[in-house]
């Protein structure tokens, strides 16, 4: 170390080194902060602190003194800071307002059993519920209205549906192209094709969404002749466009990193180029192709604008020609109208936290698999 640092300006060097080290920690800090602050806004949902029950027991303002401060704060739906900043008079007038509000609830809701339940409890979020007016228990995401229904299962199904369609479309194409470019194409073809495909990832997703909405939706409807023009199928294919370059570049890297000796040995034994690519190179690089798919999956479930523009109705259906609404779309479309700090807002943040966790896991798996593959291939070289 002494020799490396040279002999002059030691204290300054030391300071600079520490500074550089501290700045480089910012990436860790950011990941940490993202998780912390997205989850922070969602915490009340996890701990069951939100209440959407429309009909509550009315507490007359005169009985204010019988309540503990915590109860009062919850009753008036205030944050601790707001509560602390108010004097007794303000609180009393708020209680009068609250009483009037509760009195104004229409009679038909007053007798509705659904108006008495807290729809942000886990069983309403995850399990089907027989809402009044429906004949059987159903999964419903309907955050606007007197009785807000927050079942997140339709969003999961929608996300999964669109993502899987996208992957079924993108993986064969991208892996096929990766095999062609890395194993079969001539060098000068490769030099042109590879950056061109990577250029596809430079198209902003809002432009892909626009293209899918205006051009592709009509075109695909003519071919397949389905009913709804904008559906999960169109969204999935458009999503595929966005995922192809991701899968292609990782798979191509993995295929190229297979040692030349493998290929040369196979060719020398009389295998054709295709047989070599399919039976020797692809199996050796298979973990890399798998990682490419996993990372493509992470990219696909996080994609927002394409799905937001192409389809948006939250219907609970497994049919690929029905509309669907993904988690990302829901957050993007509804955050603007959600009241800051309200249950809807909190649930959207919770969805964001879940999304973050899902991509975090898929990234980790992808990274680990790729690193192992690299070690293995380098070790054998």
């Amino acid at each position, binding site marked *: 170390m002494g020799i490396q640092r040279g002999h002059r300006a030691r204290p300054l060097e030391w300071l600079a*080194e520490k500074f550089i080290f501290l700045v480089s920690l910012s990436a860790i800090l950011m990941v940490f902060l993202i998780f912390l602050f997205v989850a922070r806004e969602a915490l009340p949902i996890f701990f069951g602190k939100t209440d959407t029950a429309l009909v509550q027991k009315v507490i007359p303002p005169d009985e204010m003194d019988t309540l503990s401060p915590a109860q009062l704060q919850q009753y008036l739906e205030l944050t601790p800071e707001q509560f602390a900043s108010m004097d007794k008079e303000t609180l009393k007038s708020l209680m009068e307002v609250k009483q009037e509000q509760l009195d104004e609830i229409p009679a038909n809701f007053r007798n509705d059993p659904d108006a008495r339940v807290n729809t942000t409890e886990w069983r309403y979020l995850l399990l089907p519920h027989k809402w009044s007016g429906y004949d059987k228990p159903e999964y419903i995401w309907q955050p606007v209205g007197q009785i807000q229904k927050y079942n997140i299962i339709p969003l999961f199904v929608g996300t999964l549906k669109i993502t899987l369609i996208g992957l079924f479309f993108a993986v064969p194409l991208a892996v096929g192209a990766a095999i062609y470019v890395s194993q079969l194409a001539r060098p000068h073809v490769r030099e042109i094709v590879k950056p061109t495909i990577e250029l596809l990832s430079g198209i902003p997703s809002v432009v892909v969404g626009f293209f899918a909405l205006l051009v592709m939706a009509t075109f695909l409807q003519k071919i397949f002749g389905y009913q709804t023009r904008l559906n999960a199928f169109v969204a999935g294919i458009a999503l595929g466009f966005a995922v192809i370059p991701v899968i292609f570049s990782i798979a191509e890297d993995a295929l190229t990193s297979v040692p030349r000796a493998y290929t040369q040995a196979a060719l020398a034994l009389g295998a054709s180029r295709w047989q070599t690519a399919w039976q020797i190179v692809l199996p050796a690089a298979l973990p890399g192709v798998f990682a490419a798919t996993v990372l493509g999956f992470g990219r696909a479930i996080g994609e927002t604008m394409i799905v937001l523009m192409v389809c948006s109705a939250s219907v609970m259906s497994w049919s690929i020609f029905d509309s669907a609404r993904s988690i990302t779309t829901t957050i993007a479309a509804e955050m603007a109208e959600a009241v800051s700090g309200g249950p809807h807002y909190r649930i959207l943040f919770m969805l964001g936290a879940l999304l973050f966790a899902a991509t975090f896991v898929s990234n980790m798996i992808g990274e680990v698999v790729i690193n192992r593959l690299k070690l293995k291939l380098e070790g054998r070289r």
Partner: protein
Amino acid sequence: MNTITPPEYLPEKPSAQGRHFRAEKFDFWSFCFSGLTGLATLFILGILAVILLNILINGWRGLSWHFISTIPKKDFFDVNTTGVLPMIVGTTIRVFVMTIFVLPVGVITAIYLTEYAPNTSIVTRVIRAAVNNLAGVPSIVFGLFGLGFFINFVGKNLDTLFHNPGAVWGQPALIWAALTLAVMTLPVVIVATEESLKAIPPGLREASLALGATKLETILKVVLPQALPGIMTGGILAVSRAAGEVAPILFTGVAYYMASLPTHLTDQFMDLGYQIFVLSTQSPNIDQTRPILYATVLVLLILTFALNIVAIFIRARVRKKLRALG
């Protein structure tokens, strides 16, 4: 397996292409499958060509100087009077402010990772894992982060600190959108800079150290000037990525309509990508507004693609250098 036998044995001709002569016999299935992978490649290139040509041909007609240099009136769906000046300005400024934040942090992190970090230490591995993870976080989650952290936490606290009567910092603003994008593009800058730092021959560093320069002097005066093209690539890639992103700015600063250009960091702004979203989903008559929609898309594409192609070009040169080093 073989359903078709090769027609006849041809004496092998010496090939002009050196390593690509075909020693193998003609194999039907090999031919088919190779063809399929070739078709997949062609199909992807075809999609790219169709998207680009479609936008270029349709967008060209709507593009005019008037369109680029006009601030639209309240109703920007009107084909004749609308313009994209505030959107171009908004997108440019938010990306520019982002660059100011992301470049120093990204470059310094890359310097640490290549020049200082002990390769085996846990901290280094955690930093690398964090960078990779940051690259994979969905863009909408960055939007939520911007809202939850920058606006609701940092902004609100700044307001309390300065005793602002209303919300000045604690609301969607240019600065928060730029900072959110800076967090999002951090990995892009780090990876590109690291690549270019690795491409610099170790001999240069050793020579500088042998002449008595300190490590910091070596980095500042020898390594960084050499790495400049790579750092520029990183910056350009980050800019082109950020210019097209809409999801992170949805809740952190974009405005549906503003009568004037943004002048302060706490102003909201209009944005090209968001404008494309609005024009294509909320237009009262999509057939009528189609020309301006296409023209807006073309403007955004020109902006991002021009940058991308420059970056790819510089990057190819850096990679060649890297390969020459072995």
